[in-house]
């Protein structure tokens, strides 16, 4: 568990994620071309299987690593006896709050090997963004989130995302706003508690 400055993106991981499979695919193509120029099993393996594996990795690899990291997060929090009943899973990160101990735990999609557990006093502010845009009958949103700042780093957690725009009074949007408002309140409460400790 880390307590140092929050980093949402591990750039080494991000670059490796993109470049390593690309390099392997290129290497595969090169080997296939150089050593199995006349076809055969070797050509199939190096010209096709390796690039296909690389593409599969780009599509699914991140999500698999993220889901393993999420399970690991729960286990580590339990081991440290941190209450994780108040937890929110979103596409880009997981936030968990232990109000009694005033501790906030965070895991990020692009930094899955770091589990941050910080005193809630380091949260400086928290607010909801309903993502409202447009005028008249077009007014609506395709994303609702709650945001907070830790060590000056802004963290956005989506509570509702869609590829189309929904009216602000739509049930799905209302649920998203409610979840965001709930989390803003939880973060504020823990922040104040953390400031008193």
């Amino acid at each position, binding site marked *: 568990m880390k307590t140092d400055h929050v980093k949402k993106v591990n750039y080494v991981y991000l670059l490796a994620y993109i470049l390593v499979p690309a390099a392997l695919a290129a290497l595969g193509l090169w080997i296939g071309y150089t050593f199995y120029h006349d076809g055969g099993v070797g050509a199939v393996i190096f010209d096709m299987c390796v690039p296909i594996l690389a593409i599969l990795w780009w599509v699914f690899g991140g999500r698999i690593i993220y889901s393993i990291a999420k399970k690991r997060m729960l286990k580590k929090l339990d081991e440290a006896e941190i209450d994780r009943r108040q937890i929110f899973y979103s596409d880009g990160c997981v936030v968990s709050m232990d109000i009694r101990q005033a501790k906030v735990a965070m895991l990020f999609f692009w930094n899955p090997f770091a589990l941050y557990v910080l005193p809630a006093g380091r949260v400086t502010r928290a607010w909801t963004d309903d993502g409202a845009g447009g005028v008249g009958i077009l007014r609506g949103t395709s994303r609702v989130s709650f945001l907070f700042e830790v060590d000056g780093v802004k963290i956005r957690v989506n509570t509702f995302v869609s590829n189309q725009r929904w009216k602000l009074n739509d049930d799905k949007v209302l649920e998203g*706003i*409610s979840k965001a408002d709930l989390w803003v309140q939880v973060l504020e409460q823990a922040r104040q508690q953390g400031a008193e400790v």
Partner: protein
Amino acid sequence: MGLLDGILRRRQPDWCRECRLEMEESGEQLFALPCMSVGHYVEHTDPEFYQENLYAVAQRADIPPGMYACAAIQYRCSGCGKRVTVLNPFLPVRDQEKREGSIVFRNGELDDVWRQ
């Protein structure tokens, strides 16, 4: 009042089937439902659940974000004195609400809740 009207009204909670009378509203109360939170609503139809989990509140602002509320209306039949309670659970979201299905208790199951 025709036959069709009577058939339609049978489905209305504020209609006394026995006396064929429209009931009068005799009370309303807002409750918090702390055991239900956003994204985890489950409909309950057993009166025991509401007897245990409804907490009367004075105003909507007393219900924190993400918590469900329940608006209750009581009707009384001026003919036979029978009472009906209609519960309208909803999620308050700022000045709006996400409504869930109403639950009707026709046999005085929730009379205790009104005496809170």
